[in-house]
């Protein structure tokens, strides 16, 4: 019974998902949007409910399969918030799905459940199953617009490459299990040195890293990201960028600091190289980009790189900064995708040029997107700036022992500077370029039609804006949470 209480939030999400599927059978088509909003509301309630957990120390459940600590709670709240916003976005988007809205909502909820389980995973079996639950749901979510070839193509690409990464992951798990004789993280942490230092074990861990690196879109496992981001429906892309990446991240932290804390020092060079490559790749590829969703895809690759900087710093401040950065990223990216869903009524052209003059048609959208991009670019006082600042600061603090980190810092700063160019290009288009004539039939109308912003979207947008500003201006409160989370993960990690 205790175990069930500990997975209460996940159960609630699963039940909501089933209820959405069932309700769809009776609800008239006109009520489907209501179902989506209701599901989002339930997620809000569950989000608040997670604050009822009081954890003086980590609790284990299901015979050590799951662990519920502050880190898990942090990520569960993160996923719930993200999924709630994505649901609102999906409801707005549902007109373009043609049919099957409820299935779409339900799949989002099931993927959310998978992510929440992943946040608590303390065993490779749970890691694998939860990750696959997320992934398979995303295969369908990415290709959900089956009347659009591009959506299907995105789905197929994600599927094949995802399955390939899963193959590596599974083989890695097999090797790790084979050498150590256990799949449980807690027991793995006590494995003898002889096991840890054997090459085959190391190989297995690397393959697991491949599987997780695929999720967070780190170079060289990033190759799917841009295509899938561009082709998939906007809510899917948003959830993929925020949720899937965070799920990969939390699992990486769990494996690294939970299962093999003795090996983190040896993992550092790998993490540093991957982080540097990821930042450079994402930033450089974004420069000539004309499609906004694709641009955000590359930007999400770069973000993965920045996150890995925090992981590679190997200190509590770095991990705390990773969590903070993710929180800021949540609001920023979702704001951008909310705008994308509204501003591009025509799904097959998400060219930046189509945003010209947006500030006249929809000032709120333009302002929200501009804020999001400014935050992504790392300009104070928004959340993105503080996240990057904390990450770099943590890396700097750790750089004394490892000179390689100085290089990584240099790369990260160069990345920030380059990224300004394309983010501001988008802002300039929105504010400074005149709106192209809307249609040849009404050339006489001087002002283009205003875009209507439905109330729920308005609420979601304001929430995102508030989140970005709040995190940027008052980082203290959230930093308390992230510090707690990091302490529960690795009490032994030195605090600089």
């Amino acid at each position, binding site marked *: 019974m205790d175990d069930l209480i500990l997975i209460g939030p996940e159960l609630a999400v699963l039940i909501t998902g089933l209820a959405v599927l069932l309700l769809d059978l009776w609800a008239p088509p006109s009520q489907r949007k209501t179902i989506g909003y209701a599901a989002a509301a339930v997620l809000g309630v569950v989000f608040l409910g997670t604050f009822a957990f009081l954890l003086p120390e980590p609790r284990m459940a299901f015979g050590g399969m799951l662990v519920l600590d502050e880190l898990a709670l942090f990520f569960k709240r993160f996923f719930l918030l993200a999924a709630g916003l994505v649901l609102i976005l999906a409801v707005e988007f549902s007109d373009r799905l043609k049919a099957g809205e409820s299935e779409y909502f339900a799949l989002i909820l099931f993927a959310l459940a998978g992510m929440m389980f992943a946040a608590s995973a303390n065993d490779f079996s749970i890691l694998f199953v939860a990750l696959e639950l997320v992934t398979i749901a995303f295969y369908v979510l990415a290709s959900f617009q089956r009347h659009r070839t591009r959506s299907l193509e995105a789905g*197929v*690409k994600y599927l*094949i*490459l995802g399955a*390939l*990464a899963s193959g*590596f992951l599974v083989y890695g798990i097999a090797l790790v299990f084979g050498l150590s004789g256990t799949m449980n993280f807690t027991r793995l942490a006590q494995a003898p040195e002889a096991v840890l230092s054997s*090459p085959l074990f*190391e*190989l297995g861990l*690397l*393959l697991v890293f*491949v599987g997780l690196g*695929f999720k967070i879109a780190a*170079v*060289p*496992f990033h*190759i*799917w990201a*841009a*295509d899938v981001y561009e082709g998939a429906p906007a809510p899917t892309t948003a959830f993929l960028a925020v949720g899937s990446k965070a799920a990969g991240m939390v699992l990486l932290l769990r494996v690294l600091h939970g299962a093999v804390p003795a090996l983190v020092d040896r993992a550092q060079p*790998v993490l540093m*190289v*991957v982080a540097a490559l990821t930042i450079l*790749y994402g930033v*450089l*590829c*974004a*420069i*000539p980009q004309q499609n906004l969703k694709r641009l955000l895809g590359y930007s999400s690759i770069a973000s993965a790189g920045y996150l890995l900087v925090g992981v590679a710093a190997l200190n*509590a*401040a770095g991990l*705390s900064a990773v969590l903070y950065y993710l929180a800021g990223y949540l609001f920023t990216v979702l704001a951008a995708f909310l705008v994308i869903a509204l501003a591009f009524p025509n799904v097959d052209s998400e060219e930046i040029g189509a945003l010209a003059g947006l500030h006249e048609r929809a000032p709120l959208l333009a302002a929200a997107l501009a804020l999001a991009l*400014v935050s992504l670019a790392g*300009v*104070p*006082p928004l959340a993105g700036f503080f996240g990057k600042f904390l990450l770099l*600061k943590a890396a*700097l*603090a750790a750089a004394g022992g490892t000179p390689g980190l100085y290089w990584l810092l240099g790369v990260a*700063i160069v990345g920030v*500077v*380059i990224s*300004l*160019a394309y983010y*501001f290009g988008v802002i*300039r288009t929105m*504010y*400074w*370029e*005149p709106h192209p004539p809307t249609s040849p039939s009404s050339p006489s109308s001087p002002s283009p039609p205003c875009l209507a912003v439905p109330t729920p979207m308005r609420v979601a947008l304001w929430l995102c804006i508030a989140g970005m500003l709040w995190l940027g*201006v*008052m*980082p*203290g409160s959230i*930093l*308390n949470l992230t*510090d707690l989370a990091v302490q529960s993960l690795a009490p032994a990690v030195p*605090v*600089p």
Partner: protein
Amino acid sequence: MLLAFLGSLILWARDATGEPAVTWLALGTGTGGLQIELGLKLDPLSRLMLLVVTGVGSAIHIYSWGYLHADRNRGRYFAGLSLFTFAMLGIVLANNFLMLFIFWELVGVSSYLLIGFWFARPAAAEAAKKAFLTNRLGDFGFLLGIILVWAALGTLSFTELEARLADDPAALGAAASVAGLLIFCGAMGKSAQFPLHVWLPDAMEGPTPVSALIHAATMVAAGVYMLCRVFFVLAVPGSVALELIAWIGGVTALLAALLAVQQNDIKRILAYSTLSQLGYMVLAVGVSGASRDPSVAMYHLTTHAGFKALLFLGAGSVIHALHHEQDIWKMGGLSRRLPITFWTFLLATLALCGVPPLSGFYSKDAIIARTLESGHHGLFALATLVAALTTFYMFRLVFVAFTGPAKSQAADHARESPPVMTLPLLALAVPSVLAGFWGIHRVYGAQYGAEPAAAGSWAQQLVEPFAHAPLAAGAGLAAALMGWLGAWAWYRAALQDPLPARFATVARWLRDRLYFDELYERLIGWTQESLARLADGVDRWVIMGVAVKGTHGTFELLGRLLRLAQTGNLQTYAFVLVAGVALLLFLVMAR
């Protein structure tokens, strides 16, 4: 926008009470080694600067009302203007490096918006981008400097930093020079010092009140203000930062003055003049190392803010009256058509040239005296030379634009601007005249008064410049006189021509050209022309062409190359992934 004015009035009243307290608002604190307080710092330095920003700012707000009354996008304009002023006030009041930097960036963003206000004009958009990028380049150094200081001393608060440095002047160690110079990088960007000065003349593409705001009281002054604010970091013993700063300031002053001589656009002349005066201020900061008291820089900044805003608004009034004509050779005879504009403009010009008893004389003289006092004889000569040049090009402008016959239809039919524009002119004329006697130096003196070597001697020197440093005052005056004579001799004579010199027939143009060269030979020497051209070329080709475009191009090329990996072919993707795995395994396992 009137809100800003109201705010400035309130602050004014607060100034009158004269509370030198430091107000702390601990807005955000974090654990894990991060401790950032956001707070305000009110001391003599920031109080007076507040006055300057809000005073000039509100004059410009009112003036803009008239200047842009027909523009459709007025709302956006005033939003930008207010944001800009807000950010500027943030810089003035910041009590730590982080907050300073945040507002510093905000100023950059809002100036980008304002310069590019007429974005439909490609030049304006280009100028806005250039300003932003150049500033970012400087800010990058600034940020590194801040991080360095923070890493060495562990705090970002000015008060604490100062205390720590006072306790242990060697706390920064070998990093002192580097940190100082990196921080100066930020000032170089904002205050447009060589070689990052390229953005400022182009920024004239913005509306004229914006130019006034950016050039007079705010953006460019932010750099100098920041230098004075963190002077204690720059002036630690053993640092070579100040020496270099002084020379960069001197070079900027000279270069800009030379370039100003060559310009025909009324706003560009003023822009280069601003550059030159900023060079003065930076120079003043640089030579104040021995006396540990950069107040002369602030003094000049304050007086300059007044008369330069006046000059720009006057120019704006002229441009407005002539329906956006900016070429001075198409003006002429405006003294009769625009009397208020002319007299205020003349007053400001005199102040800029350093004619006693106007404000510019005292502040400029203080700088020249300081160079002499600190033993920088080369810089003293340079400063005097620039003073002469300043008078020369300013009176060239006045003679050509305001006296003589009208040189175009528009100039002949010009009418005085509405009162909403002339009133700010009159209001700004007051400080231009009075700021010299008013005792600004004493306020700034209080800021640095506690420091050891800041004896009150310089204050007396200001009251009696001639008595204290007769050589400096005399040299300054003589330089001004020489410049004026040069302008009078040639441009008064040039005005006898029925047509403006530049647009006459080839022969006439050649003759004028020779006259030019002759003048140069007598005054400075033949090299000036080529120097001016060289400097312009360096601007245009080396700095913009190679440094900015080259870097940008390289990255763009890299991006396009990398993008080729994204062929869209699933098989290639799979190959990239597997090859990545193979490489990763190889790197880790094959040891």
